[in-house]
């Protein structure tokens, strides 16, 4: 998994590095021979469906979970067997885990007080953090007397006060309501911009990942499915899993026959008789006769049924008007496909329509799911 330069540019030294790590719980393999590098100062999101091993991976970086095989490096130093507190890593838990018997001030200063910092230093650093997070008015309240968003900020403050080099977040926003989540998302982005610290962020919400991260790691059953910037993942998914997981509504997959490959362009036969020409990476083996064509809903457009450009033809099953756009579910010989049309589409269900395909944006996947 070679490093893909972060969007921020600049020297991107590997900060956190996992080499061929595996985590087993008895017979369950949560993480399977996974290699990953995270650059200094980057905001990396770990994305994937529930149970794919995101939390496990994060907790291994934190040192909360023993690594069954493989190594973990921080700044080039092997920390595989180093205790969590000695890693200069801070973690924000999904449940916040604020100590209920301590005030905001005590919660934030707890790690300093454990480290034996002087009262003065504790005070100064607590105030500095409270100022950044706008918690100054709540310093003497206990967690039970704070709102969800304030608790979230205290949890971040507790991480911040230690001046860690790496921040780990495990679904930090999932306990907040939708509006607060958007607000906190912006605050996190701001925080990252000011601190320039390395942040690793677990989520199963792709909007969060796409908006916050400059690099996304998609996990599938304990393995890395793809690493890349948000747009890379969206436009050039490495496999069917990533293609299906990223984007909403999900990508359409059409069974196609492969007729010819020439100069990086494959000609495929679509169900219903038309053909399409799709760019492919290498030269796929001639043996690959069938494949799946992945087309995002916004890369299909409605045309009249007998239009010469119509790659597919079908009957509209459901129309969903969302105001700014319209989603159409069209039954075609290739199965039901979802089409994203403009807001003012006047098609009704039962109408027969043609669908034209933006070939430049379509992707071809082999039988094993890998992008061709």
């Amino acid at each position, binding site marked *: 998994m070679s490093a893909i330069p972060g969007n921020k540019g600049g020297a991107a030294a590997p900060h956190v590095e996992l080499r061929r790590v595996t985590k087993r719980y008895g017979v369950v393999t949560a993480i399977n021979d996974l290699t990953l590098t995270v650059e200094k100062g980057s905001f990396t999101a770990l994305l994937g469906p529930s149970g794919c091993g995101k939390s496990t991976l994060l907790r291994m970086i*934190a040192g909360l979970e023993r690594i069954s095989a493989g190594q973990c490096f921080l700044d080039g130093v092997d920390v595989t067997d180093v205790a969590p*507190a000695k890693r200069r890593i801070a*973690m924000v*838990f999904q449940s916040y885990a604020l*100590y209920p*018997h301590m005030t905001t001030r005590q919660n934030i200063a707890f790690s300093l007080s454990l480290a034996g910092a002087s009262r003065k230093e504790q005070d100064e650093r607590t105030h500095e953090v409270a100022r950044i997070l706008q918690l100054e008015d709540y310093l003497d309240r206990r967690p039970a007397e704070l709102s969800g968003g304030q608790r979230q900020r205290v949890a971040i403050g507790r991480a911040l006060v230690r001046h860690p080099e790496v921040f780990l977040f495990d679904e930090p926003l999932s306990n907040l309501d939708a509006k607060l989540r958007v607000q906190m998302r912006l605050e996190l982005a701001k925080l990252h911009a000011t601190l320039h610290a390395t942040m690793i962020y677990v989520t199963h919400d792709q909007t969060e990942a796409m908006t916050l991260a400059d690099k996304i790691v998609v996990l599938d059953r304990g393995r890395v499915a793809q690493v890349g910037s948000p747009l890379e993942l969206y436009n050039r998914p490495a496999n069917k899993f990533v293609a299906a997981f990223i984007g909403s509504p999900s990508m359409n997959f059409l069974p196609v026959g492969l007729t010819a490959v020439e100069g990086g362009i494959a000609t495929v036969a679509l169900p219903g008789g038309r053909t399409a020409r799709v760019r492919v990476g290498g030269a796929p083996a001639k043996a690959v006769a069938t494949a799946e064509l992945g087309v995002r809903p916004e890369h299909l457009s409605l045309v009249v049924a007998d239009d010469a450009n119509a790659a597919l033809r079908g009957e509209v099953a459901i129309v969903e008007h969302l105001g700014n756009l319209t989603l159409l579910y069209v039954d075609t010989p290739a199965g039901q496909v979802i089409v994203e049309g403009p807001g003012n589409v006047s098609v009704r269900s039962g109408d027969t329509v043609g669908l034209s395909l933006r070939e430049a944006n379509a992707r071809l996947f082999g039988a094993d799911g890998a992008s061709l």
Partner: protein
Amino acid sequence: MTDTALVSDAPPPAARPLVRLRQLDLFGAVVTLATLAGAVVWAFPLYWGLVTTFKPETEIVQPGVHLWPQNFTFENYAHVLMQTKIGLWYVNSLVTSGAVTVIVVVMAAAAGYAISQLEFPGRRVFWAMILASFMVPIPALIVNHFVLMSQFGWINTLQGVVAPQLIAPVTVIIYKQFFDSVPKDFREAAVMDGANDFQLLFRIYLPMNWGITTALAIITFIGAWNLFLWPFLAVSSEEKLNVAVGITQVHDAFGVQYGRDLAVAMLAALPVAIVYLIFQRRVTQAIMLSAGIKG
């Protein structure tokens, strides 16, 4: 009645519920009165003992029932405070009960934490041992406790009174259960913050379960204060007695003096009664816990 159950939001027919309500009131009133009467009966011996202490001895032995002293006096209290060693017994009780409470709570919290949170060889054995000692009747051990204490030279000393009271498996069990139920995120957060196991115990686990500690400390203290059999066996000199045993010794000193006997008893009960009245909720909670009901 059945039709109202089917159509729950329809207004019930007027006649029957009214009859039912009147029945309910009558029955309820009878039960309430009986309960309150029962409470009065239950409290009466305590009241009667207390009020007797404020009567002069001559009035006490007069025939007739007087619920309030005709000549209110503190003479009985004054006498026992001056003439008995109750002040010293108080100190002994305080010292021994306090020591038992502190040692039991610290030991139980530490052991409960280790068994709940740490992996170490022998953990299961210790846990089984604690559960087993739950079933051992301490009075069955009096003979060998006495032998052991005399080997230590601790007979007739305060530490000799304290030592055998330190076996408190229930306290360990309760702590373990409460520590088990602390979400592991707290532990992990504190570990990331750099806490070691001792800091985890004393700065996270114990303070988070402060209520339990108070409850257990109070009930341990009351139990130690009230203990009769062991201090009665272990102590032979009047100077080392605790209050609960001490008050049974004054009888011999005065001859029969009802007012004084009772006054000294009331003094013995006073501290625990005050503790109970202040910490009612905690005492209740501790009793539920020790009976195996988590509340």
